């Protein structure tokens, strides 16, 4: 058996936890595959990579990656990761969660971590629904789309996540679908190398709930939709990348900017005011 080919992403996965819980056709696993390849490409030492998740289907990612990982409470992965990231400046902290977790219950934390420019990468798998609890409406569910709690179709306005992250000051913002595995891998690699708050939205199917309830076919048909309807517009104004039901999808790397991180701002200010009296925070080093 010694010449059995080894999957290049094996090293980053907890193989003793397989099989995973995700359904056939789900996009989360594809995104994890891209993430694992990006970690290798970015040459991040696994001992200095920490993954934090909230609750939900995507929230289970933390449990499958073979690094120090934390499966925290619903919506609160970002503040937990904030404490971790500030206290381990030598590590890369990644928050990996879904649209409901990060932008509904966790929306407040999302905007403030971006505003503070906390050094972390946030990967949001946006499948437009709460999968774990049976397909309820989320802040990204398109107008008119059916969910278990919008049986007559959604009537709320939706978040444009790249625009939200951009307006809060994120340093790097990208969106891809799980059809765009190479581009997604490249953007995650870039995000991991970005100093400060980086955000990646991954558009992904939930065939079991969102696609089925909206009669959109299976995972393969959804990938076909992503292929047909996506246009790459790097540098697009994030105000223009909003989505609606089965609309065109603008994908690409939208934002790259450089401003002081939380810690840089803190240290700069304290040095100015306290001079030699300032003792920098070194976390747990």
């Amino acid at each position: 058996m010694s010449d059995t080919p080894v999957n290049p992403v094996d090293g980053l996965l907890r193989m003793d936890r397989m099989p995973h819980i995700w359904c056939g056709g789900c996009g989360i696993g594809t995104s994890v595959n891209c993430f694992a390849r990006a970690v290798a490409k970015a040459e991040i030492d696994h001992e200095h990579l920490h993954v934090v998740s909230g609750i939900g289907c995507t929230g289970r990612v933390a449990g499958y990656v073979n690094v120090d990982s934390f499966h925290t409470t619903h919506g609160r992965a970002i503040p937990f990761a904030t404490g971790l990231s500030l206290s381990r400046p030598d590590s890369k902290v990644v928050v990996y969660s879904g649209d409901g977790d990060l932008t509904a219950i966790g929306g407040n934390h999302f905007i403030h971590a971006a505003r503070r420019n906390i050094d972390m990468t946030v990967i949001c798998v946006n499948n437009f629904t709460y999968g774990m609890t049976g397909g309820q409406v989320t802040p990204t569910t398109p107008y008119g789309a059916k969910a278990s709690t919008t049986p007559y179709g959604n009537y709320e306005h939706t978040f444009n996540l790249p625009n939200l992250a951009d307006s809060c000051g994120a340093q790097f913002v990208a969106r891809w679908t799980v059809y765009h595995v190479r581009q997604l891998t490249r953007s995650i690699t870039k995000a991991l190398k970005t100093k400060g708050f980086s955000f990646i939205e991954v558009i992904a199917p939930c065939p079991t709930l969102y696609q089925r309830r909206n009669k959109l076919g299976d995972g393969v048909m959804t990938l076909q939709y992503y292929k047909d309807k996506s246009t790459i517009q790097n540098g697009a104004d994030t105000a223009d990348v909003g989505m609606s039901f089965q609309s065109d999808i603008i994908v690409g790397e939208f934002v790259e900017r450089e401003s002081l991180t939380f810690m840089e701002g803190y240290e700069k200010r304290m040095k100015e005011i306290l001079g030699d009296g300032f003792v920098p925070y070194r976390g747990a080093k």
Partner: protein
Amino acid sequence: MKADPTAVASGMHFIDGNEACGEGAIAAGCRFVAGYPITPSTEVVENIARRFPKIGGLFIQMEDEIASSTCVQGAVWAGLKAMTVTSGPGISLMMEHVGLAAITECPTVFVNVQRGGPSTGLPTLPAQQDVMQARWGSHGDYEVIAVAPSSPQECFDHVITCFNLAEKYRCPVFFMMDETVGHMLGKVKIPPADEIEVVERVYTKRPPGEYLPYKIYDGDQPEMVRVGMGHRIHSTGLTHDERGYPDMNAEAQDKMVRRLCSKINDHVDEISIAESDQVEGSDVTIVSYGITSRVVAYAVDLLREQGLKIGRVRLVTLWPFNEKLIKDVAQNTKSIIVAEMNLGQMVHEVERVVAGKVPVHLIGHAGGAMIELQTIMDKIKEVAS
């Protein structure tokens, strides 16, 4: 271990309980605090925000109390000692993360400068109404430790107790201050660093591959790691097995929850601090805690001068409840009074343990002001006669 001499503000100070609490946390080795402004606790973090940049600590004012209470747990897993500070509505918001600290066995200190409730209640006025919330506030079965100070000096001394207990028992620890003790000015002696006992976190010496994060190797606590040690741990708020992996069934739940409880309940004697000033065959023994215990002590002194046979017990540790002490009280006295700044919380614990052996009375107060000396004296005389 001793405290860090470069950080401890050794000397005599005239400060309030809130400032003393921050100084105690610094002495205990806390170098990460996350909090959100809320009366009457805010001065704790204001002092921390002034002090930390000069001693290598980090304070972050988060967007709310929910964020604060989990941010500190991220710092703990990074390898820091950390606390959050709040009051009233803030501690209600933090309850989910009390449960997270309990199930993940994350040593976290929650300072609660109690004010009157429910809801917004009395932001600037004291109460002792969160005693049962500290014990039962997050969903599920678990145990916590809670300590109640009664003076600015004790705000310094016993926040150190809280950090030390958190490290030893790997659980959420509540520091149950109140508005009065928080804003009370008093003499606070901060000893030289080498006289302050500090419990340092003990990390596992087992190498990766020979270590499971929730396995009991020796004693009854799992061995801790921090991130980056190479063990690649997984920590989850789900019911988990020794590997830290989700294991959701009745057997795993029973094993985990019983251990979370027994690791504290089996050590009540070591955890518990109380002042017991009992009198054999007393007509009445009065049980109190926190700021109320100071009024009680004065009342008891005055009534003893008048010749009354009164015992006095002050609980410093509220949780785990010291059943042995209260059983002992019930053997030595004809009746018990519990005085507390709520309409009856700890009195239920006392009644449970006393189990009808002697009558148990309550001096309750809905909060907003301390229980008056005369009220306590009148009730003692009434019960004793």
